C-alpha cells in the first residue's frame, strides 16, 4: 500500500513540475545565460526545457549568410556536462564540443544561408545510482552586426 501512496506523490510532483520548471527556466536563461552572449545581442528567442541526465534535444533553425552568430548552451549547475553538435541537414557534423573541452559556446558565420541542427545531450551521471538529476537547459542565439558597418 505504501508503494501506491509513493506513486501518487511522485505522479503529482511530476504533473506539477513542468509549471514550476518552465518559470524557473526563463529566469535562469534571463539572469544567467543571456550574459554569456555578450558582445553578441540575444535574438530574443526562448528555447529552454527541463532535461534529465542522459536525455537529448534537437533544435532546427535557418542561419543566414552575412550574419555573425553565437550559439550558447546553458545548463543549470546541478547537471553533468552537456555535449552538443552542430549538424547540416544531412546530419554531417560541423562542430562537436567534445573536441573543444565541452565548450558551451560556438561562434560562427556563413557564406551561404543554411538550415542547421543543434543536437545536444546531457551526459549521464557517473556510477550506478538510480537518482536522476534534472535541470534547465537553454539554447540561446546571439547575433552581431558586421564590424565593417
Amino acid at each position, binding site marked *: *500500500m505504501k508503494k*501506491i*501512496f509513493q506513486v*501518487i*506523490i511522485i505522479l*503529482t*510532483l511530476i504533473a*506539477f*513540475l513542468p509549471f*514550476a*520548471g*518552465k*518559470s*524557473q*527556466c*526563463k*529566469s*535562469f536563461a*534571463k*539572469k*544567467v545565460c543571456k550574459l554569456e552572449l555578450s558582445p553578441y545581442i*540575444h*535574438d*530574443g*528567442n*526562448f528555447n529552454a*526545457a527541463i532535461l*534529465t541526465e*542522459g*536525455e537529448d534535444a*534537437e*533544435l*532546427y*533553425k*535557418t542561419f*543566414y549568410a*552575412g*550574419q555573425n552568430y553565437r550559439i550558447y548552451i546553458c545548463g*543549470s*549547475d*546541478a547537471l553533468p556536462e552537456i555535449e552538443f553538435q552542430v549538424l*547540416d541537414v544531412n546530419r554531417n557534423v*560541423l562542430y562537436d564540443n567534445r573536441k573543444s573541452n565541452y565548450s558551451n559556446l560556438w*561562434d560562427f*558565420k*556563413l*557564406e*551561404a*544561408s*543554411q*538550415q542547421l541542427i543543434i543536437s545536444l545531450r546531457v551526459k549521464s551521471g557517473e556510477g550506478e545510482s*538510480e537518482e536522476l*538529476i*534534472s*535541470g534547465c537547459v537553454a*539554447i540561446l542565439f546571439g*547575433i552581431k*552586426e*558586421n564590424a565593417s*558597418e
Partner: protein
Amino acid sequence: MNSTPVLRKAIKYFAISLSIAVISSCSSDKSKTSDSDDTVTLDSLEINEQLIQDVKTVKEIFYSLPSPLETAMILKQAGAKYNEELLNPVDNVSRYVTNKSMALNLGIYTTDLSYASLFDQTQATINYMNASKKMAEGLGILNAIDEDIVERLEANINNRDVIMDIISETIMNSSSFFEENDRQALSTIVLVGGWVEGLYIATNLVGSDADLENNELVNRIIDQKLTLTTVFNLLNQNQDNEDVKNIITNVNELKAIFDKIEISTSKIEPVTDEETKVTTLKSKTKISMSPKTYSELKDKIKVIRNNYTL
C-alpha cells in the same frame, strides 16, 4: 470493507503531495516576478527503473524561426534602406481585437520596432514599442512588457546597445510567457506575423529594376524557402487551433510559389580562424528563380500581410 481508511489515507497523501506541488509552483511564480534567483537546481527524484528507461527515450525538439530582431538585422545586413511607409501604421492598433489579430500584429509591430531601431529612428522606435505594448496587453501578457519600458527606451534612445537589449528582452518575455502558460499556438502566430512582415518589407525594398540574380535582399527572401519547413513544423504542432489552421492555408499558398524556386548547396566546409576562434561555414549556393516567380511571391506576400493588418 476496509477501503474507507485506505481511501482516507490515499486522499491524505494526495493532498500533501498536491500542497507541495502548489507551493513549489507558487514560489516559482514569485521568482518570475522578482527575478531574484540566479540558478536553478531542481530536486532529484528517486524513480524506479522503468521510469528511468521512459525518461531516457524522451527527446525535446525545438523549431526556431528568426526573431523580429534577427529579421531586422538580416534586412540591414543585406543592404535594406529605411522606409517608414512600409510599416504597419500604429493607428491601426484599435482594429485588432481578436487573439489571432493581436498575436499576428504583435509579431508585425515588433518587427517594425526592430527595423526602426536598427536605423536609429527614435520616434518610430518609441511609437512601435507602444503599439507592441498594446498588443501584448490585449493578449494578457502580464510583465512581458514592463510599465516603464517606454520610459527606459526614451532614457536610452541614443544608446543602440541598450535599445537592442530592451527589444530582445521584450521578445523573450513574450515568447516565454506563452510557453509557460501553454499558449504555444499564440506564440507561433506571433512569430509567423513577424516573419511575414520581414518578407513584406524585404520584397517592397527591392526595386522594380533590380537585378534579381545579384541582389542580397532577394537572396535573403529566397532563403526563406529554407525557413518554410520550420514554419510548417511549428504550425503543425498547433494544427488543432482554428486560427493556426487559417495561417497554415496562407503558408501553403506561399509554399506553392517557393516550390518553383530551386536552391542547391555545395557541401559545407567549416574553417576556424585560430586567432578569433570564429568558424566560417564555407559553401556555395546556386539559385534558379524566374522574374515571374519573384513577382508572384511579392504579390502573394502583400495579400497575406494586408489580410493580417487591415
